[in-house]
């Protein structure tokens, strides 16, 4: 058990080192930090001085060491565009993105599980076929198109819901939340639905596949033979077992949702990390890009490692294979 734990941890650290190396290479070799940070009229002496103060005159390996040390202490440099510390920028934007992701995850679970069960129980029914057809369109429709259509219908034509920004937010310490005000909640709706639709199809298809699998197993047939009520069989016996992989996938998908929020945030001008990142990409603001990469990479590595270790705890066969 300890061996599995250590090898997964080792892998995680290795991946993070690779990600940090990519970040570092971006920092160091893409564009010229000195040119982007100094005034246009800076003299050569000023530039040399800046180069020395940034440590750019030292060997690359030493620079990478310094970079790692600074990163670990939470200093990710200064944004070329905003001239503010990157860590501070990301911390400001983090609550907006996480709240959006939470709302989207809850919405997609609340809709995806019942729809998946419906499709599994009556696979040839009219409703199930309709849902299946919609899910194909759902998979093929890019998030930004969904967002634009929702804005057109609910914000422009009907005027029911706000279509950009977070509305009024309340600060709880460093965390600014939109959950506590009416305008904050209504602002969450459209982007939340847009982001949830991407996830919804996945959850629905997964629930359907797992349910069909479970429903054809021996213990369900046995329960039917005993004459247990259908509702009890479907929801207490079958659904519970079908939900295990769904929970795992939902967990694993949180990382993807954060990355995918980039698109939703652009459509709705949602002031989260994704919008920060896309602005950084279009302005070639390397420190922000590198920091976002590190942050999202870290999220992914933590989630994947935790899931891997949990699997090994739950399923002894995996322990033997990886050891």
């Amino acid at each position, binding site marked *: 058990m300890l061996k599995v734990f250590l090898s997964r941890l080792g892998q995680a650290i290795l*991946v993070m080192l*690779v990600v940090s190396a990519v970040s570092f290479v*971006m920092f160091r070799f*893409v*564009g010229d930090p000195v040119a982007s940070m100094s005034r246009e009229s800076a003299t050569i002496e000023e530039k040399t001085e800046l180069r020395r103060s940034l440590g750019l005159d030292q060997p690359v390996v030493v620079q990478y060491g310094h970079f790692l040390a600074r990163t670990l202490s939470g200093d990710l440099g200064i944004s070329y565009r905003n001239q503010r510390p990157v860590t501070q920028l990301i911390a400001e934007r983090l609550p907006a993105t996480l709240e959006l992701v939470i709302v989207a995850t809850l919405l997609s679970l609340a809709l995806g599980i019942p729809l998946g069960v419906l499709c599994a129980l009556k696979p040839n029914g009219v409703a199930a076929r309709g849902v299946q057809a919609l899910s*194909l*369109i759902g*998979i*093929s*429709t*890019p*998030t*930004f*198109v969904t967002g*634009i*259509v929702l*804005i*057109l219908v609910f*914000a*422009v034509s009907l005027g029911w819901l706000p*279509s950009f920004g977070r509305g009024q937010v309340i600060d709880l310490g460093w965390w600014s939340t939109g959950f506590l005000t009416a305008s904050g909640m209504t602002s969450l709706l459209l982007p939340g639905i847009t982001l949830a639709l991407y996830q919804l199809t*996945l959850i629905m*298809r*997964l629930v359907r*596949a797992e349910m069909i699998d479970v429903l054809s197993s021996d213990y369900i047939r046995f329960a039917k033979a005993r004459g247990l009520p259908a509702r009890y069989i479907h929801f207490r016996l079958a659904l519970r077992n079908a939900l295990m992989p769904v929970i795992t*996938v939902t967990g694993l998908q949180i*990382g*993807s949702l954060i*990355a*995918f929020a*980039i*698109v939703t945030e*652009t*459509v709705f001008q949602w002031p989260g990390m994704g919008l920060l*990142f*896309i602005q*950084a*990409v*279009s302005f*070639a603001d*390397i420190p922000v*890009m590198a920091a976002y*990469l590190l942050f*999202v*990479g870290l999220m*992914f*590595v933590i989630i*994947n490692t935790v899931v891997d270790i949990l699997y090994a705890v739950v399923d002894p066969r995996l322990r033997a294979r990886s050891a």
Partner: protein
Amino acid sequence: MKTLTASPGLITRIGAPISVMVAGVVALVMVACALLASRIAPYDPTDLASFDLINAELPPAFSADGDPRFLLGTDNQGRDLLSAMLYGARVSIAIGGGAVLVAATIGVFLGLLAGYYGGKVDAVIMRVADVILSFPTILLALLVSGIARAVLPGAATAEWAPVILICAIAIHEWVQYARTVRAATMVETAKEYVRAGKVIGLPSRRIMLRHILPNVMSPVLVISTINLAAAVLTEATLSFLGVGMPPTYPSLGTLIRIGNEFVFSGIWWIALFPALALVILVVAVNLVGDWLRDRFNPKLRVKR
């Protein structure tokens, strides 16, 4: 695909459901229209002289104050939207196809190496693949285009946009090819004919390219259809985000981005028609691709 629709005898033999056949025809018609854009488009959207600001933001011909000259209306610069869409679809399909080609080439090559040699070569290639696969397509694609933007001078970014986009999409898509080909190669390598080839001393390169490659190509062709749909979507997303094709040479995604700025003023058609074209194209290609996959290689089914 072409042979399927060309000979009716084959269709009945294969027995595709009607929805798949309709999707196949729709996909073919859309691709054909896009490829023939310069012949069938009513106007040339790349020709600055052909459009006039006086005609800007005209609604589609079938609405109350539409202009019969412009079937789907005009954009903010007075360009005929239908023509712009035809040219845009051509750009989208070309980039999607290019990305699939690059990804397939890299993936097949690395998959062959990994499957044939095994051991350390395999371990290194598959580890890299695992790391890449743990990040979402869109994030990697944005990183690639962000780095390209920082390296290239401003003016060159627009010029190199198609190449940047193809690389940005292919960097994630090759992994699926490599995994598929690796698995198939491992099966083939254990077979008699490959062992015989080794015994008579054929060079490894010859065994891989002449003997194994033809036997592992069919799953590659099958996943390419679905990957084409995915690549077109990724391209559209990047262009929509403003890091893809420039407005001077728009793809469908760029057109949607331009249209998005006018959605709030109730000018819906500039964004909606290109979006509709994009969705129909991708749904059609996906339907055909799903069917091909289930028909020819059920093992390839992946959870998405």
